[in-house]
């Protein structure tokens, strides 16, 4: 190979016009991509990259023939490399095991029969049996397009009352639960028993995703405190949780409020929610009057979920033209470049803003203290904090540790007790790291029944 490298004397002078053409083409194509990106998307710094390539290619046209040939070889190679990367990325995407595969594997490993039916099939089957079945309602998905009720925009925090939610399948079987008379994941009739013993406020973990009902926190708490109610909804962050506290808790007047902090997303969601005008719940005078508008809000939520079902039943298939355009415009490569840029800010996005969180907790305390209730924070760990567990990186661990320290400091300052579940799972030595599979599902990453049991035990011990 070395000897071959020393053979520069080959004459390719006849290739110079082709090289000139290739450089001119590279320049034109790059300019076209730049224009397309700017027109279709926002004109960000990223769209300047093709412009720089266009300029460099045009500049190379003024080089001496030999150098022009070399520049053309570089441009052709780099261009071919980019399109090859696009093709490889497409290939890798299709090769990626789907969530269903991971769930099937998890079920097989745990000896649980695997329900391979898509969620939509189960919903339609239940509907055929006149059951009001819906997919889960995630309030945060309405941030960009709030629902309309009584002619005004709103972000409801509860699902359709008295309906059935077909939630998710993480361990082989779907979590299917009944919503109470106000749309929360509880058995019916609890609302008439106020004051409550315990109210659970939080995201998916407060719902019990995705374990059998008997393993959920609310169910376990009810064994000791029968008047336990959950106001949880998947994807909730602190301001949505504050919304459910402000709008619904005064009716329930619970003695204890267990406010769940999910290590995996609470910090990030807080920052997102803080920008949503309809969630300005830090203002003591603000409320959406969700309980009073329940009838119209329920209809809005029902319409929203029916639209989602309709989209699922009639999905839009990508056309050949759109696929070709994506390939030509290097869609995946561009997305990854933006992602690289975002990766830099994602750490900041995942950092818990101590001051803002303190305001949220303070406001929560004000609400709950109105009837003499008390808040206890529950710190729910993510599997990514444990070395050897899926999703672990030293950076993730560091971020979680920093956020945990912030939370403990804020809670300490406000005198709010914290049940730190992260300490109930240890950092296992390498030989025992496979044990994490006992506690966390492979996909997406919720607790398995064994993980929930540890959390249930921790909460019950601390509440004693």
């Amino acid at each position: 190979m070395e000897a071959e490298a020393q053979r520069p004397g080959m004459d390719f002078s006849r290739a110079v016009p082709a090289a000139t053409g290739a450089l001119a083409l590279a320049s034109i194509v790059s300019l076209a991509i730049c224009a397309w990106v700017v027109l279709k998307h926002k004109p960000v710094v990223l769209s300047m990259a093709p412009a720089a390539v266009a300029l460099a290619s045009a500049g190379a046209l003024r080089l001496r023939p030999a150098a022009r040939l070399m520049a053309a070889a570089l441009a052709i190679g780099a261009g071919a490399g980019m399109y090859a990367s696009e093709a490889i990325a497409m290939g890798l995407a299709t090769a990626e095991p789907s969530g269903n595969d991971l769930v099937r594997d998890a079920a097989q490993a745990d000896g649980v029969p695997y329900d391979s039916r898509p969620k939509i099939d189960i919903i339609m089957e239940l509907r055929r049996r006149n059951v009001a079945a819906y997919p889960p309602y995630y309030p945060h998905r309405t941030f960009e397009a709030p629902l309309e009720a009584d002619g005004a925009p709103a972000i409801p925090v509860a699902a359709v009352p008295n309906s059935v939610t077909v939630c998710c399948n993480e361990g082989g079987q779907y979590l299917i639960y009944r919503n109470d008379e106000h749309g929360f994941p509880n058995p019916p009739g609890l609302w008439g028993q106020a004051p409550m013993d315990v109210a659970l406020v939080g995201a998916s973990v407060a719902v019990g995703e995705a374990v059998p009902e008997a393993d959920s926190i609310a169910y376990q708490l009810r064994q000791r405190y029968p008047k336990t109610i959950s106001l949880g909804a998947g994807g909730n962050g602190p301001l949505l949780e504050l919304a459910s506290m402000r709008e619904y808790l005064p009716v329930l007047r619970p003695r204890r409020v267990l406010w769940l902090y999910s290590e995996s997303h609470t910090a990030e969601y807080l920052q997102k929610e803080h920008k949503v005008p309809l969630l300005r719940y830090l203002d003591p005078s603000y409320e959406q009057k969700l309980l009073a508008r329940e009838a119209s809000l329920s209809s809005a939520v029902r319409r929203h979920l029916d639209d989602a079902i309709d989209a699922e039943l009639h999905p839009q298939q990508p056309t050949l033209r759109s696929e070709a355009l994506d390939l030509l415009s290097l869609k995946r490569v561009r997305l990854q470049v933006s992602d690289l840029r975002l990766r830099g800010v994602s750490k900041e996005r995942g950092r818990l803003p101590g001051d803002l969180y303190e305001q949220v907790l303070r406001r929560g305390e004000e609400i709950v203290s109105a009837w003499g209730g008390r808040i206890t924070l529950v710190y729910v760990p993510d599997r990514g904090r444990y070395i050897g567990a899926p999703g672990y990186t030293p950076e993730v661990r560091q971020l979680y540790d920093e956020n945990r320290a912030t939370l403990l400091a804020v809670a300490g300052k406000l005198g709010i007790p914290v049940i730190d579940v992260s300490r109930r799972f240890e950092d296992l030595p390498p030989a025992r790291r496979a044990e994490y599979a006992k506690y966390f599902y492979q996909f997406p990453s919720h607790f398995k029944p064994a993980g929930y049991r540890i959390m249930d035990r921790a909460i019950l011990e601390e509440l004693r």
Partner: protein
Amino acid sequence: MGSTSFEFLGFALAAVAAFRLSSSPVWRRSVFLIANLVFLGSFVGGPWSLVPLAAFLGFGYAGVALIRRAPARSFLPILAATIAAFVWLKKYAFVPGAWFLPVAYVTVGLSYILFRLLHLMIDTRSGNLPARVGVVSYLNYTLNFTTLVSGPIQPYQEFEKMSGAAAPPLNIFTTAAAVERIVIGLFKANVAALLLSTYHTRAIAALASPEPAVWRVAHAAMIVVYYPFFLYCNFSGYIDIVIGIGRLLGLTLPENFNRPFAADNFITFWNCWHMTLSNWLKTYVYNPLLMSLMRRFPARGLETTWLAVALFVTFFLVGVWHGQTSEFLFFGFLQGFSVSTNRMWQIAMAKRLGNKRFKALSARPWYVAIARGFTFTWFSFTLLWFWSNWGQLRSFQAALSVGQECALWLAMFAAATALLAGWESLRRRMAGFHWDGAPVTQSQYWRVAQGAAAVTIVLLLTLLMNQRAPEIVYKAF
């Protein structure tokens, strides 16, 4: 530090830059030693984790010195003790677990260090190593960061000739050739191997799902086909990278691969795959064993038998070296069986047809294509015991009926024969493609375009898409 990572590349380039700062032998040897120790240090978990490896190296050095002083008396005990220490440190399955050290320690590159040590000891004993090996040279040779993790295995005489002050200065052509080699290696190890490994894993998962028989056979075929190519890209990619880095340091590391899938028999295959290991075993196991058998039992009719025995033992050891489990033992058996049977076939055919006619037959394109297809299919079959365990093999078998398995291997053989012949033909055509009388694929423009494409793909895939390449498989051995 992964040997195909950008981190390793950055480290290696920093070492090259420091190494090239001065041509003083002391400077270069010192920089090389520091680089080797820093690289080794990157694997260290705690203060005591390096002690067993350091003791093994110290024992090896003392052993070589003792053999030089009293070769007749000390050689065999020291050789046996070195192998025993290696087996103990590598925690071979047949050694009682209670004998092992209860602490975690570094074993990276231990197998390759053993090959270098045994070579030093045997060559000292036979007088092929005339000069005394100094401590720095010894450490630089055994811990050479370019070859520590997975080889290639270089003879000390070659290493010593090229290291230190003797390293030739770099020029644009040697640098370009070295960079080209590194880029090719990065592409193979970080892109091609990643893709093949992803598809291999996917095919294994797909085989377990309930699907029609045709699809199951197709998934099984993919499982069998992807792995040899993955292993090749993974290992030869790493070798390309370290050979390129070696060139920048003025070290000409031996080649470890020479288009193995073009081999049309199993003996040629092992002459083209992990070549330095095959050569080492040929020099230190096959030749002495064959000589000794022929000397002890000199009857004329037994020559072929001894040849087969020596080949079997040598290639059995090749397999066994890879791992300590019964799967690797069987893998070794299959390698030994294949190579010795292949040799017997060649002898029998030469006897039956005569040397000339057999040679003529072996050169016929259809014979070469079929033999190449068979060699690839058989090697892929033997690799089942390399990457899987008995449990996985049972589920593989359970997923297919006997008829489906037969169909699988027949289809594999037919496809390998046709596709490898097609690939060889395409290669020849590409090499023969000329522009104005000059071979295009050897021009600097073609190679620059090829390199630019490879660099772009590697950068986009590893940096942007956050896809980590699989570890070098041979690192574990």
